[in-house]
């Protein structure tokens, strides 16, 4: 089965593609609504600014097809900004609406810690996670972000602390997301992607 990687014009897609193909998955870049309408699994990667992300989706007419696919139960994996976009809004772009599957606002990391949060960090498991299956509790993941969703959000299955406890992994039904970059997190990250690929096969 092909995994549609949402291409909204700003993300660094080659590394995500390479990582998924390395696991034997087929991928295609989704730039048009019809591709999302036909997708059986979707990866929503993201780097850059929340506003650019929201605008990039909207300009390509991808926002509603993405919402519709999610409502229809298509498995989705959001990466970094792709996770943040599943929430209602972000302090990074007041006035821009996220996809709104979860009501919380994504917040800026506070000034008492170094921001961006860049580097390899560990996560704290809060519930059983399908994405983290087979990964040791003390494993490290590569993070690079200045904003994060609060760990108190209902779909959080693993949290990380940097200024405040934030959602490192979220899972609810067909919606999944990681704040770290699995495609840049070595063998551990590959296992996260493998878990996603296997769950949608």
């Amino acid at each position, binding site marked *: 089965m092909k995994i549609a990687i949402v291409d909204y014009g*700003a993300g*660094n897609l*080659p*590394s995500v593609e*390479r*990582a998924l193909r390395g696991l034997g998955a087929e991928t295609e870049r989704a730039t048009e609504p019809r591709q999302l309408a036909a997708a059986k699994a979707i990866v929503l990667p993201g*780097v*850059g*600014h929340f506003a*650019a992300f929201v605008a990039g989706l909207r300009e390509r007419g991808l926002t509603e097809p993405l919402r519709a696919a999610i409502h229809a139960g298509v498995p989705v994996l959001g990466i970094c900004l792709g996770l943040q976009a599943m929430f209602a809004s972000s302090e990074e772009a007041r006035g821009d609406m996220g996809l709104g599957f979860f009501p919380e606002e994504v917040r800026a990391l506070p*000034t008492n810690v*170094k*921001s*961006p*949060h*860049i*580097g*390899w*960090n*560990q*996560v*704290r498991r809060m519930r059983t996670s399908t994405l983290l299956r087979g990964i*040791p509790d003390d*494993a*490290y993941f*590569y993070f*690079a*972000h*200045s904003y994060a969703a609060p760990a108190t959000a209902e779909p959080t299955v693993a949290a*990380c*602390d*940097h200024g405040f406890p934030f959602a490192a992994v979220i899972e609810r039904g067909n919606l999944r997301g990681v704040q770290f*970059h699995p*495609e*840049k*997190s*070595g*063998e*551990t*990250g*590959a296992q996260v992607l493998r878990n996603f690929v296997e769950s949608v096969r």
Partner: protein
Amino acid sequence: MTLARRIIPCLDVDAGRVVKGIEFEGLRDMGDPAELGARYNREGADELVVLDISASVEGRATFLETIQRVAERLNIPLTAGGGIRKLEDGRAVLLAGAEKVTVNTAAVERPELISELSQQFGAQAVVLSLDVKRKGDTWEAYTRGGRDATGLDAAKWAAEAVSRGAGEILLTSIDRDGTCSGFDCELTAKIAATVPVPVIASGGASTFEDFLAVFTEGRADAALAASIFHQETRSIAAMKKFLAEHGVPIRMSR
């Protein structure tokens, strides 16, 4: 749960080959960047930096291709830079497969470059490369590979770059570079205390103890070195084990 300190090998690339500057001799060929990058990835490097030091236009032309070839072999983050003059140069480097781009000379000449890159790609993608020399009790920023003094105080320039959107500082002590006398921990601690973003220390690394010192006294978030890794005299895995045994939070590869 702790943010690990990072070990970052650096590849200086001239016309598609990794090179090392040797006194009185010029540049020595150290191998293929993609092969070396893949080896460091395997040995547990936390990130890789690739810098274009080509003096010629022909050499520069191959740099994007080098980034692409290196990125294809990695599942860790890649930072690339050297000679980035404008927004489009930065975009090309990121599209070629790097996660972050470094800027130095052009940012000193036109600090707006940092703002432009940061607004477009996010602060986490923009690294200020800060080459400094000690000047009495302070440090002065240099450009053009350490040749030109800028008159800028390193700490003040670092703070301005961060306020413009640089998400990380790659801090190189020109005084220590190539001396094997250890990182300048005083410098690193000073800059780390000044800016609210991670600081990567560079210049002078030779022993495992140098790395331990820069993570403790120097308060560095990451440490970068080139030649000590290229020669295979010091393996990254052995260094990480040493640091972990001395209480530094380190990611041990599986």
